[in-house]
């Protein structure tokens, strides 16, 4: 579904170039739940920003269903974001002036979808995510966990095929985090959503089916969960992270 081919990203001016991503390549299959881990400054958010079209790559290609996102014009990009991508950020990025319901349905409504269909879709997804009873109220009146579930609902209400999450549990307490991760797992398992989640938290990553580790802008390890239980996978992740903190040659 998603192919990331040798992408590079540089920041800075002529005399002071920072290489945020260095020849990163990987594929994501439809229906996968992939976590990208790494320390602060490892390039994981930059990678997510490039995939989500928030940022552009300096070299390499990102293909979604065989289409290079760099080749899309403004209109096509907007349509692409609207129909194919869903976003969940650490700080929710909900619009304060809109109710929960309006936040979820805004993109559909602005694109002239039939109001009845919008309403049905919003109610449907809100029911699945357990936020149907907070639909008429404003974001400042709900908890962090509910905000994040609202963001998830917004990210999938249009039937988006790829959900991109940047530290989705970063601003939540442990109970709300667990709740959100279980919802994301259900979205992946029951609704077939493909999820790409960036996190530095091993517990969150253990919910994924596969974990990619980034260090200094490069993919340096990959873990597959396979048939193992979540807690075993969690400990394996911790082991890789311990190695990640030391010399790379200790791990490979």
């Amino acid at each position, binding site marked *: 579904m998603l192919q990331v081919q040798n992408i590079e990203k540089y920041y800075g001016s002529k005399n002071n170039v920072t290489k945020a991503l260095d020849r990163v390549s990987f594929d994501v299959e439809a229906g996968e739940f992939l976590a990208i881990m790494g320390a602060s400054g490892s390039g994981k958010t930059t990678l997510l920003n490039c995939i989500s079209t928030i940022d552009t790559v300096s070299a390499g290609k990102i293909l979604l269903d065989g289409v290079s996102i760099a080749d899309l014009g403004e209109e096509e990009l*907007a349509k692409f974001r*609207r129909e194919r991508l869903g976003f969940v950020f650490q700080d929710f990025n909900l619009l304060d*002036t809109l109710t929960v319901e309006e936040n979820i349905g805004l993109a559909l*409504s602005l694109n002239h979808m039939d109001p009845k269909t919008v309403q049905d879709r919003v109610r449907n997804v809100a029911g699945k995510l357990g936020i149907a009873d907070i639909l008429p109220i404003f974001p400042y009146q709900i908890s962090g966990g509910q905000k994040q579930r609202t963001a998830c609902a*917004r990210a999938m209400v249009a039937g988006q095929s790829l959900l991109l999450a940047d530290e989705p549990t970063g601003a939540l307490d442990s109970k709300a985090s667990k709740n959100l991760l279980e919802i994301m797992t259900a979205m992946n398992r029951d609704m077939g959503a493909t999820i790409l989640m960036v996190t530095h938290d091993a517990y969150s990553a253990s919910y994924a089916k596969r974990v990619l580790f980034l260090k200094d802008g490069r993919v340096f390890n990959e873990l597959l969960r396979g048939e193992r239980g979540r807690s075993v996978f969690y400990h394996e992740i911790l082991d890789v992270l311990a190695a990640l903190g030391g010399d790379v040659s200790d791990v490979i």
Partner: protein
Amino acid sequence: MSLPRWEVMSVTLSKLSLRNARRQARDYLVYFVTVVMAAALLYSFNGLVFSGEVRQLSEGMHMLPFVIVLASAVVVCIFGWLVSYATGFMLSRRSRELGTYVLIGLTNRQVARLFFLENLAVGGAALVLGLALGGLLYQILRAILFAMFGLPYHFEMALSFPAAGLTLFYFVLIYLHALGKSRKRVRKMKIWDLIYFDRQNEGAAIRTGKLRRWMFGVSILLGVAGTVLLTAGSLMIGIMGAGCLIAALFGFFLSFASGVPAFFEKRPARKYQGQTLLVFRTLASKLATMGMVMAVISMIFTATLLTEGSGLVFNGIFRGRAAENACYDLYFGIEGEDQDPGPYLEYIDGNIPVEQSVLYQIYLSDSSQVQDYVSSRTVYYYYNYDRDPVLCWSDYAALRQIAGYPPVEMEPGRYLIHCMTYLEEPLGDYHQPIVLGNVTLTPGNVYTEHLSQSFGVGNGRGYILVVPDEAAAGLAVHHLAYAAKTLQPVSEQQYNVLNDIAAMEHDNQVNPSGYGFVSTKANEAAQVAVQTATSVFPMFYLALALSMTVATILTIQQLSETERYRRQFILLRKLGMARQEMKRALGRQFALYYAMPAVPPVLIAAPFLFHMARLPEPGVMVGMSSPAAIVALSFSLFFLIYGIYILLAYTSLRRSVLVE
């Protein structure tokens, strides 16, 4: 559980814009109120442009529409800058939100339209409210004008469609410019820029200490040079002075603002003294990145003070000159001996009912001893007489009575001096006797009421010696004069006829040696009113627009930090800071922040206004128009408006930040 409402699911761009506009008006209330005031100001002055009754107040008022439209053009530029700045500022504050719209699938074009529509809605609402408020403001202007012309005023509230149309036209210009700019910005912005725009700031312009110190020194020198050049009196040199001052302000703020952190870094003892660290860090974070904005604000401050001060100087000149001339309902003087006042008196007898009048002569003494003395004591004096002017006691007594002054006594063998206020002190010290023919007179009292003493054929120029009638016999006559108290104010048309007689007499060689001069109380009042309306009104209009603009920008900047301040003070409270201490720290931050851009303008404007108020001839700028009063008044007026904004910002910030 309440179910989603059907209608909310049809959120359109315009509905969303309206909702955002409401929030914008609430979050940026000070800005919104200023835009309402801007509309009100523009409408009220446009009201003057289109008012037929205002134009008919006097012939001179025909100039008013032209002058007001010119001033409005400048005011539109000022408000245009304010709206453009505030819109850009809000864009940067809300870029993350706008980025979210793009993220969920809106095109940049749609987001730009959304932003455009909501700002248009805010502008539209401000315009409607402003028109209502402007109607009241127009009535105030009208009442002031009517009072200046001495006419009765009746309250009449009505919408002037041409004035509203012109205000709408100005608003369209203001908003199209500002929104066109932000529209372009949003459309060009990458989604990354939008989401992370609020993290960007104006970079500190001057980074090295050496350059900063050099720039600081040069800017101070340029500031002093600019102020001196501005008061030099020549237009070209004045323009050079203004250039120096602009460069000085930019140099000062760029070097000073980025130098504040460096100053404290090098002096840790000062940094950790009391609340300095807290106040300095909060200010430094703003100042280091606001050098350019502060310089522009300071420049506008300077312009405001100069405009306001100049308005007061002009006002002082008009009133000061008129007060001296307006002491008689009707006065005329004809230069030369044996003049015939016949044509004047004939017209007056036939057309102007007179209650009391006096026809008299102004004589010249045998010497210029008093004039020589006055010249030696004052810097400036007009020499209209080659000898001291003299007036008979009986004429003087009649003149006092006609003007409504209390009667005075003159002892035998003495002479009195009647002079303008500014000569009271030197002439009070004059104790020399005067000799007229074979009569010697010793000095008596000095009187200073207005007595038409500021022109060539008046009752002396600045002063006159009042002598017993018999002492004046045989003295040379300088001119003939007439003063009267009329039953009705002399109309503009009657004044014009008398002036025509004076001109005709001169042209027909009836009075070739000199000229006739006519003045009436009503005409002087009308002249003051016309001059005030056409020059002082526009100046205050400009000054008001300028001061509102800068105060709003500073306040928007300050209030946008409310949330940050709130978090900071919650943390400080947890760290053990007392509420009283926090209040003091907030107060100090506020005082410094608002004082910073106001200090250089005060230093520039004070000497300039002092200088300007000293330029008119002596005797005019006295009392409330004296140089010190002009400076004090213009500063008070400015700081009154500035103070309102500071108080609003401080109260709002204190309420949100220092929560109980």
